């Protein structure tokens, strides 16, 4: 079976227990305004251009069979006509400096397993394993399920970062093969959720609750990307914690302060980024924001970027 993999990050210390291989799947139904991986949005492999690496040699223009590429008038950039481009990526093959390249590639389960198995000693030595991430994992539920099953047969610990948007049948294809998982809670208010991500949170929240009922022994860890001015209000933070209390399998609630490390990728893709001006919260500010959870007597620990703040 084939899936579209954005990239594979090795020995990540921050995505679950131990050192983990994180497999980023490509394609996402959400469009979170602060997204740090915009290159994961589209489901198919995606053309991009890093102007700083470009030598304007024109090899890509010559390689293109569709006349979709041209050098800009001032000679300082390669312009792609998206209408004409058929995503054959011959230009990327022709580019010597990898100024033009492709985000994501089609891989079979076996091919991904081969990469995963390179890291098996890291899993053994750290109690680590793999974490599926996105994009959105559910969008490729069949592929993800096959991959996770294969990992479990190889006795590799599995985790996933799930958006939980989509048909619950897809959730059922994945969670049975997970040792644990993360869910992203972006906003508790359905209207706000639509404004910031393009979609309502109703399905997401319902799926989370139901998964908690049906798989109570598969630990779920809730994560909140804390975005100034979006979801850092006292109201939203307490509502998030109250929601988590209702999920039987919830084992922790973690806040991840917004960062701007993905900004450059918006440029490579030639799309705008509306959060460029937003200043990340400092450690103190983050702690101050979630102070409202004090005294709520939550049945799970509260963390900021891996560090336990409560319990």
């Amino acid at each position, binding site marked *: 079976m084939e899936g579209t993999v954005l990239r594979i990050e*090795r020995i*990540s*210390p921050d995505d679950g227990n131990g*050192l983990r291989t994180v497999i980023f799947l490509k394609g996402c139904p959400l469009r979170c305004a602060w997204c740090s991986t915009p290159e994961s949005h589209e489901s198919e492999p995606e053309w991009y251009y890093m102007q700083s690496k470009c030598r304007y040699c024109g090899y890509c223009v010559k390689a293109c069979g569709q006349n979709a590429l041209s050098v800009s008038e001032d000679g300082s950039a390669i312009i792609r006509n998206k209408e004409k481009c058929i995503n054959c990526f011959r230009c990327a093959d022709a580019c010597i400096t990898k100024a033009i390249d492709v985000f994501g590639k089609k891989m079979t389960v076996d091919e991904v397993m081969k990469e995963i198995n390179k890291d098996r*000693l*890291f899993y053994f030595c750290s109690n680590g394993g793999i974490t599926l991430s996105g994009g959105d994992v559910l969008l490729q539920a069949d592929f993800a399920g096959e991959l996770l099953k294969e990992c479990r047969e190889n006795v590799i610990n599995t985790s996933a970062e799930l958006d939980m948007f989509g048909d619950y049948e897809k959730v059922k294809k994945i969670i049975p093969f997970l040792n644990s998982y993360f869910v992203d809670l972006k906003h508790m208010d359905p209207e706000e959720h639509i404004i910031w991500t393009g979609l309502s949170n109703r399905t997401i929240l319902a799926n989370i609750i139901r998964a908690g009922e049906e798989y109570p022994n598969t630990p779920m860890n809730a994560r909140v990307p804390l975005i100034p001015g979006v979801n850092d209000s006292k109201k939203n933070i307490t509502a998030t914690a109250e929601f988590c209390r209702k999920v039987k399998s919830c084992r922790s609630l973690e806040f991840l302060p917004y960062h701007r490390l993905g900004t450059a990728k918006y440029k490579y893709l030639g799309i705008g980024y509306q959060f460029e001006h937003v200043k990340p919260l400092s450690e103190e500010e983050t702690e101050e924001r979630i102070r409202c959870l004090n005294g709520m007597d939550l049945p799970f620990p509260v963390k900021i*970027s891996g560090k336990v703040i409560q319990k």
Partner: protein
Amino acid sequence: MADKAYMKRVSRLKKRVLDTTPEVDMEDAVILTKGYIESDGETPAVQKGYAFWKQCTEKSVTIWPDELIVGCSGSKQRGGICSPDNSWLWVYNELDTIDKRPSDPFIFKDEDKKIFNDVVVPYWKGRSMQEKWLKQIPEETKILKECGVLYIDRKNVRGPGELTADYERVVKEGVEGIEARIAEVEKTLDVTVPGDFEKMDYLRALRYCADGLRQLGKRYSAEAKRMAEEEQDPQRKAELLKISEVCGRVPEKPARTFWEAIQSMYIYQIAIFMEHQSASYNPGALDQYLYPYYKADIEAGRLTEDEAQELLDCLWVKFSNQCIFQDQDTAKFSAGYPMFQNVCCGGVDQNGKDAVNDLSYKMLQATMEVQMYQPSLSVKYNLIQNPDKFLKKVVELMQMGTGFPAFHSDIAGQMMVMNKGVPLKDSYKWNPCGCVENTIPGKTRNYTSYADYNLGLAVEFAMNDGKSRKYGRYAGARTGDPRNFKTFDQYMDAVKTQIRHELHGLAAGDQVTVHLQEEQLCPVASLTFDGCIEKALDYSCGGPVYSIGDGVDAIGVADLINSIQAVKELVYDKKVLTMDELAKAIDADFRGYDDILALCQNAKKYGNDDEEVNDLATDMFNYIEDYIETFSNRFGKLSGGILPVSGNTPFGMEVGALPSGRRAWMPLADGVSPNVGTDTNGMSAVIGSVSHIPHGRNDQGTLLNLKLDPAFARGEGAVESLMAFLKSLCAMGIYHVQFNVVDEEELKDAQIHPEDHKDLLIRVAGYTAFFVELSRETQNDIISRTTQVAI
């Protein structure tokens, strides 16, 4: 730790070293020369023994303020002593540049130059090892040496080094015990039996050396007593009296206390260094052989934990007292006045069980507190036996960014020494030697790093019909015009032919060196090698129980792999280039060939855990090892190692552009590390690739430099993550790693304002030096080493 009272003393001791500029010290050379003149007519062994004894009885015995552990090979702090029996010629040739050279300059006073010219040179002219070498070097070796293919002078311009004597024997038995061993053998000899005269003569030399050690202790004892009588400060007076008592006892007699054990070991250390000035005399597993004394003192209440730590810290500063004094070429290949006195902790005991004890932690603590460039602290981490608490302390020291410790997998080290022919039981005792080599204390005869060969030039010669671009001479094999290589296999054959040609010339030189070293005896070190007394045969003549052939070090591993890969990929597989185009671009150092340069640089590179490149590395280095092992000298088979010290920079200056996309005259890759800036997939991909080098077969040692991913250097969970990373590295069969965590800004600032960074320690390659004392090129190389952050 700053609040510990003893740190004031340590700081003062340290400051004195830091404030002292290295200076040439002629005292040893002058006494040695007089000793030889007086004993002319005796055999070489007795002459050497007598001259050493004379050094011990006449040299200055200075005790500096605040010292608790005393002793100095020469007369000066940070002195460079000279062993003219090995070589005086280079000093003579470089007389006016020693104080100005870029790598490791020394002050050289006019009066010292005069003594050197008047006393030392006239006697040694025509007698030193270096002169004999220059006369006897085989022609094929000479051409390779002159064209930068081989660095092969190391053993011919200085003493043997690269050994670990059995310090424990001196500490435990004392000089008396060693003399008793000599007497046992003497009893069995009869001068009328053929061969026994030579043995009796050699044992006479050993007796001179043993007594020299005794006299050295006695003289420090007397000096301490004299100073105590004049000392006004009651505390210092008491310390001096204690020093006098300790040195009155050791090394003559067995040590009874921790202090005596350290002092006994250290006097033997300076004596070995006096005998032949050389790098890499390794005190080894101090936590094992000093532990009984520490334990007894603590249990008896004679010593507090802090007092033990203070003694160890004082010893640590002492290790920085000497500076290696070597010719400018050798200094380029191992810059930073490196003494390579390797001490280690951790590992297993004689039964293969966990050997970590309180002293293991105290050794790590000493390096945390003292932060000097010596001793080279190594850790032998045994994945199966050693506790996590120990690994945690190791990681905490790594994260401090001093470049220490050098981390070694104990099991990989055992495999290496076993591959050299050491049985399992003795393999447990191996210790890191010099840079990252390995040895067994008091048991192995082995030049672990006899010579280096240049793999970058093997690639160049295959592209250029054996001709050196720099010198225009045909130093390599005539493998023909590369345009005639119709298949990749033909190209590969040419590269392999060039490698064999280099190694043949190296092995030829080794035969001469081994023969010359038989006249270059080292009876002081031989006192504690199993077999030397029993056989009455010197270390240099194969006395030790395990006599092992010499080590042959590859430099430019990644350059070789990446160049072959680029040719395969671009010329033969994808056919995007012709050999003619590639050859022209390389001839021009890629000037005017930007496209070809970009293609070469973007070909697959070693260090990214790519299967094709990994397999190439495995195949090449098994091929090379197979070939090296076809050579033997009289001590055993030659074998490989991959440890550049800092030789990748000067070797790079001999090599033109390469198919890997490396420009002409730039540094080659160091050790088994990737080429600078070509590893883009993070630390796990690097070690994935590195694990494909056959480490066990490169049994002289393999060296890996990694800049530490910030995620593993600080922050939540970083200690655990780095511990897991190191365990994985051991599980993958990798032998060694060292981390650099200093950031680039700091290094650049140190180049501009060296005065602000006098104590900035940097791991160069297998050793640590003060950054500001390194040459500009070496500094630049360190700065440009890639920072390992996964994209």
